[in-house]
């Protein structure tokens, strides 16, 4: 029963995954509330980019934040953390 197998020998000890874009599908479809940034209020501090658990805030110092709605799941963390209160969660349905 306990014959050694090349398949098992090649496995890592515990399952590991390599993060890849959209590995869990298009998570934007999970959303009921959508974060909308008011760029007039935004100070380009970058905290929304830092806190977003899905890495769906794209950020440059010049242009500030932009949300990738294909994957943003609408958790609202960015809105909660924004010190300038520049992000509104808007009902989509």
């Amino acid at each position, binding site marked *: 029963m306990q014959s050694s197998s090349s*398949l098992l020998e090649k496995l890592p*000890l515990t399952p590991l*995954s390599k993060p890849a874009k959209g590995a869990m599908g298009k998570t934007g479809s999970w959303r009921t509330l959508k974060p909308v940034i008011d760029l007039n209020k935004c100070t380009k501090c970058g905290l929304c980019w830092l806190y977003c658990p899905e890495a769906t805030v794209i950020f440059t110092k010049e242009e500030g934040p932009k949300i990738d709605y294909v994957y943003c799941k609408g958790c609202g963390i960015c809105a909660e953390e924004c010190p300038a209160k520049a992000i509104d969660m808007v009902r989509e349905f």
Partner: protein
Amino acid sequence: MGKVIITTGNYSAAYAAKAAKVDVVAAYPITPQTSIIEKISEFIEKGEMKAEYIRVESEHSAMAACIGASVAGARTFTATSAHGLALMHEMLHWAAATRAPVVMAVVNRAMGPPWNIWSDHVDSLSQRDTGWMQFYVESNQEIFDTIIQAYRVAEDPEVKMPAMICSDAFILSHTSQPLEILSEEEVEDFLPPYEPPFDITDVDHPVTHGNIVWPEPRGDSPVGYMEFRYLMHQGQLNAKRKIKEIVKEFEKKFGRNHGDLIEKYKVDDADVAIVSMGALAAQAKYVVDLMREEGYRVGAIKLRVFRPFPDDEIREVTKGLKALVVADRNISYGYKGISATEIESALYSLEKRPLVLNFIMGIGGRDVKPEDQRKMIEAAFDIIETGELTKEAEWYGLLR
């Protein structure tokens, strides 16, 4: 030879964590374990131990922090007892399944209610199927030595499973005995720095632990969940071989041997042997000596490692015995003593096997004196004569 001091079982565990150059300690206080982590925080505060102490709000968080630290490549230590260990239960599965070689001192204490802080092995035995290796020790020196040995076993590339070192509340935890402390340098020769199997700090090649694995192969995974469970089982089985090798190497280097998976004492020509776990294994050897002087052919077996279970070793050591006394400081409600069920299951494949007398004793710290162990052994000699073995466990010393 290291420095010899007089100290408690709990401080012996703390000195061992220091000698093993542990990098991260995350723990939450609980009687009777607390003085282990108090001593460690004192070492760190005084700058005698270069470790990160993570203060947490519960034992569940303590183990979660230990898992994170271990996966990130740190040698990790914690300690707990009874309800603290029970609260860790979910994270114990996590540590083993993510193959984090955390080493933990468990000071065995009874579970409440009613509240009782004295020795009882149900707390750690209830964690049997979490994947943790379990060592049960009989002296303060054995606590120290086994923590050092356990890191070698747990971190071995063929094992990579966590380990708990279990010692009896108060009987060892708060009782002073001579302890030879090995220096960090002496230990480092035997226990080199930890090398983790994955580098999760390599941000250019990120990996995620704890992803989904399906029942069957799927996507990039050539196997399913079951195969990873088989690998954990293999890790435990490999530990049986590794513990024997590492105990031998330890003896060669430091001159002490507390047994490997089991320890046998005067069993070879015996008719009866008594099996014990923890501190009572030390007292059993004393009782054997007394009874030997009177001509009894009796021996003692210490069940030192409970997982991986020493089934071959139990079959081998009980060859030639007429009866085996199994003294359990625990009860599996509705059946019998937990070590007795395991031992009987190991013996079942033999055609000729000894009678097994199971005693439930010492529950919630009730004192078990040498004369009590003697009575259990005498009962076994009586049964060899009469052949009248009761199948149920006997509650030794129960007030009726």
